[in-house]
């Protein structure tokens, strides 16, 4: 699905955010990138929809080298969810959800149908919510809409940049559960950035742990917990979390 081939990003000030990053993300995989702040995870994510251009290396989506694509067209084919939610306060919920369909010129009926479908997916009654404005919704509801907006044109790939980071713990928990179920049902490929290890262990098929722009370890949650590559990995996961995880596995 997505292949990173020795991708590097050096900023103008000389700082090397990502170094020779190579990875293959499989179809339908839930990939979580995690690491301390400044490790390059967000930069890596944003290179996939060309919000940031790599200095060297190539990213392929499907068979296509993304630098050969028109960035505007490319972005419309990739779902994108950000931490600050980024709903447009001047647009009603339905308009927020159907932005990309509108950009792509879908008919009014088709858009309306899609909005209803999506709202029902997260059990928000379209009759109640479609015409409301973001400011009238709770944080959790807003981010549900943020996720729906990314799903609107059924992109096979969705990028998520700490989407649940700004929510309170209970709302975050609910949304994680909900989203995990949704992802399995819709069979999307997800690249998900977080700094929250609990979140990573809970959601990921595979975790990429990064530090200083490089991959430290790639593996399933089980692999990371049971055979951490080095001291940094085990410290980053934390001993108590490892204990908890192992205990819940054996149960």
């Amino acid at each position, binding site marked *: 699905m997505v292949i990173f081939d020795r991708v590097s990003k050096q900023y103008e000030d000389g700082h090397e955010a990502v170094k020779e990053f190579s990875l293959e993300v499989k179809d339908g995989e839930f990939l979580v990138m995690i690491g301390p702040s400044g490790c390059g995870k967000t930069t890596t994510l944003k290179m996939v*929809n060309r*919000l940031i251009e790599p200095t060297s290396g190539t990213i392929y989506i499907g068979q296509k080298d993304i630098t050969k694509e028109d960035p*505007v*067209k*490319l*972005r*419309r*084919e990739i779902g*994108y969810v*950000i*931490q*600050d*939610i*980024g*709903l*447009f*306060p*001047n*647009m*009603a919920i339905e308009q927020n959800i159907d*932005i*990309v369909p509108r*950009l792509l010129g879908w008919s009014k009926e088709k858009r309306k149908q899609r909005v209803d479908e999506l709202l029902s997916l997260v059990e928000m009654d379209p009759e109640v919510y479609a015409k409301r*404005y*973001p*400011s*009238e919704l709770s944080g959790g509801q807003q981010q549900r809409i943020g996720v729906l*907006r990314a799903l609107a044109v059924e992109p096979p790939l969705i*990028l998520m940049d700490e989407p649940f980071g700004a929510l309170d713990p209970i709302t975050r928990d609910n949304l994680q559960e909900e989203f995990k179920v949704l992802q399995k049902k819709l069979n999307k490929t997800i690249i998900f950035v977080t700094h929250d290890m609990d979140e990573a262990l809970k959601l990921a098929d595979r975790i990429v742990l990064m530090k200083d722009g490089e991959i430290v370890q790639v593996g399933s949650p089980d692999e990371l917990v049971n055979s951490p590559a080095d001291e940094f990995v085990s410290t980053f996961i934390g001993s108590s979390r490892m204990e908890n995880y192992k205990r819940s596995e054996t149960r």
Partner: protein
Amino acid sequence: MERVFLLTVEHLQLSLMGVLIALLVAIPLGIFIYRYKGFAGVVLSLTDVIQTIPSLAMLALLMLVFGLGNTTVIAALVLYSLLPIVRNTYTGLNNVSPSLIEAGRGMGMTRFQRLRYVELPLALPVIMAGIRVATVTAIGIATIGVLIGGGGLGVLIWRGIQNTDTQMILMGSIPAALLAILADFLLGKIEKRLIPKGMN
């Protein structure tokens, strides 16, 4: 009485004409310096300087170019209206949250689409505030247009001063003041209608 009414209408026409022409220049200019920030300093200082020229001096200077009459008054009003509208357009656009702009980019909006659907609507309250300031200022400055042969309510005020005719001064100044208040009120109403519901 009919004279007062006609002069009031003329006063309003002069003021609105000045603000409208200024809008056509100032909003695109505000957008331009938002996009090309390198020009922002120059454009804003220039409009700032224009603003500080005393109005009588401005009218006299413009009179040298446009001669006596309403054209000169309108030209002065255009120049005075530039600053609040350019500055507020620029500030309003700059205040749009970067995360919203990134969300727009990330979803595949072109620059124009971002401006049209995100940046301008969100900057609108600030832009409208600039237009209100410009309009009220224009109504005020238009009263001295009479000194270079312009029309409007200044005619009554000026004649009243010359003849120490209190009644005539009031017949000019009260409608002028009411006009300013009314214009501000109506623009406030328009603002409410223009600004999307979710943003209050």
